[in-house]
């Protein structure tokens, strides 16, 4: 029921809004994925690397100090402890194995915060594949540490100077590269975005987060949680942790978007809350845009949430009422980050900090509940931004 239909639609959202040139590549990708996804050679190889290279399963950690502070039982799903420091590698590993099966010899990717770029550069180094990363010049500036990591692992960084010089423009540039080199190149999209079958692929590769978390919480707490919380940019960590809880109707699924400087301003990235259905980067989703259909610039203190669209499956889940969404400002996200650092000794990424900040909101989460929060990434990359503000 949660699978997209043959054209890649989740209800009213999704699809394959791409030039004809890309259709055969998307069809080949889907066919190859469907053929090998249950093939034991593939699943075993993926499981091997997820365990020995990435360090999975990631812990589900009962965070006692913030639990006490907020009068709840709060479990953190520690994706920040994965190799490379975020959930992104779950997807890049799956996709590069897929690319190898398809006989592709070159990898490209877009990146915002640089986490997906690092995760892509990492698996390319591992598999010995050349790698081109597209990154907005503004993001290159605010995520310089990640740029250095990618370069060290042998990736080529392509600075994108068009439009807002952030993730949106890097994605456009990566799609263009793919159209030019579609015959030998695989494009590893970093979020559950883009044309079908990408939202499906990324969600499935990331769904290991929720699969583990569900098992772990049953073992540790003996019960399902009251709510699962994740930050939402494009939506890959959110769908990843939500997916195996979709059928557990007692479990609230809560997504937290970036309210930037406030939803009442134009400087935010809350596509689920404030976007209108539109076509961006190959799929129909809720997009921040003006009345003529021009895409608006998103804004968030965290580069990874700074995107004017959102994964089509999340749009569908929200429309169906299965997903609740809230938005957290830059200011509150920084507070959330500081609080976790002080109370738990964990520095979370600013993306994740948006989800952390929601814990303080009693109108959304009442006391004595059991919560799982996806700690999608660690905050080392954000230290410059954090130290400027805190």
């Amino acid at each position, binding site marked *: 029921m949660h699978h997209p239909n043959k054209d890649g639609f989740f209800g009213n959202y999704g699809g*394959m*809004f*791409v*030039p004809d040139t890309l259709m055969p590549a998307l069809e080949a990708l889907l066919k190859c994925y469907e053929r090998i996804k249950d093939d034991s050679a593939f699943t075993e190889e993926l499981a091997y690397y997820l365990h020995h290279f990435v360090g999975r399963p990631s812990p589900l950690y009962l965070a006692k100090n913030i639990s006490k502070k907020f009068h709840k039982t709060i479990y953190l799903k520690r994706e920040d402890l994965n190799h490379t420091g975020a959930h992104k590698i779950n997807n890049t590993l799956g996709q590069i194995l897929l690319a190898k099966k398809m006989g592709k010899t070159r990898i490209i990717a877009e990146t915002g915060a640089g986490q997906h770029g690092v995760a892509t550069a990492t698996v390319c180094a591992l598999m010995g594949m050349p790698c081109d990363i597209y990154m907005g010049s503004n993001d290159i500036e605010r995520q310089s540490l990640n740029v250095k990591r990618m370069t060290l692992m042998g990736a080529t960084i392509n600075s994108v100077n068009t439009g807002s010089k952030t993730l949106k423009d890097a994605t456009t540039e990566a799609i263009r590269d793919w159209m030019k080199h579609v015959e030998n190149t695989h494009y590893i999209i970093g979020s559950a975005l883009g044309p079908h079958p990408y939202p499906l692929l990324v969600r499935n590769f990331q769904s290991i987060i929720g699969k583990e978390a569900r098992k772990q919480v049953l073992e540790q707490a003996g019960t399902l949680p009251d709510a699962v919380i994740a930050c939402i940019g494009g939506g890959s960590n959110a769908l990843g942790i939500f997916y195996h809880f979709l059928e557990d109707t007692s479990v609230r699924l809560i997504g937290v978007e970036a309210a930037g400087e406030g939803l009442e301003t134009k400087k935010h990235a809350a596509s689920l809350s404030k976007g209108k259905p539109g*076509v961006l980067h190959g799929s129909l989703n809720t997009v921040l845009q003006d009345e003529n*259909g*021009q895409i608006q610039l998103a804004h968030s203190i965290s580069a990874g949430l700074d995107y004017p669209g959102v994964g089509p499956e999340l749009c569908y889940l929200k429309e169906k009422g299965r997903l609740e969404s809230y938005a957290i400002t830059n200011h509150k996200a920084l507070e959330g980050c500081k609080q976790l650092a002080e109370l738990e000794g964990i520095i979370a990424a600013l993306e994740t900090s948006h989800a952390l900040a929601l814990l303080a909101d009693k109108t959304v989460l009442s006391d004595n509940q059991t919560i799982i929060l996806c700690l999608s990434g660690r905050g080392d990359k954000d230290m410059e931004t954090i130290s400027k503000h805190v």
Partner: protein
Amino acid sequence: MSNLLEQVFKEKALIAYVTLGDPSVEATITYCKALIDAGISMIEIGLPFSDPIADGPIIQASHQQALATGEDVSVNRGFALIKQLKEYAPNVPILIMAATNIIMQYGYQSFFKQANDVNCDGLIMPDCSFEMVQAINQIQQPPNVPLINLVSPVCDTERLKNIVTYSKGFIYLISSTGITGERNEFSNKLKQLVMDIKNIKNIPVAIGFGISQQDHCKRLSQFADGIIIGSHFVKLIQEKPSLKEGIDAVCNRVKQFKAVL
């Protein structure tokens, strides 16, 4: 199909792409009229979009420039331009080329209704695959405003058959894989593809993407019914110090290209 398109494709057609509002809407009007005077067979009016995925750097820059002026470059402004051009030259087909999102936000039904009213001769949505056209069942094309489908050299036999069978107006054949922009290499499959298309249905085929040389026009027009020039003209307009010099340069090229068709 639009009688005008049928008429135009009785001879080899030279088709120009023009971005609405680059460098200004007023300039676009002057430029289109000059193209018509120089003997262009057909014009595609490109509506600027903030995030064009099918276009190369030249046309993207042109879109950004048009949007940056802050002028009205909406669908309605495009229709107003078509109305003016139709008064100037009723027999030159004028099409609109726009990103799917631009048309979706305007409303597919309203678009086709208005397009029909201003005698627009067709719509091209370069980022809307044929499968999506089928999926968006709201798109009912009035007979005089066909939705022109694009076909690329990587299109397989089965899809090609589907696309061509449902196509009206003409087929927009993409010269090679990749985005718009000047290039010297074209897919060696083009001739065969044109033959395959004609075997499925007798429909005109125009080739576009990256054509900039007289020699390209000569070679490709031996088997295609039309040649579409985009980036090459956009670049000429951008490069020349004044609009007049840009327009003169493009019109000269139009004459040179027409001479070898």
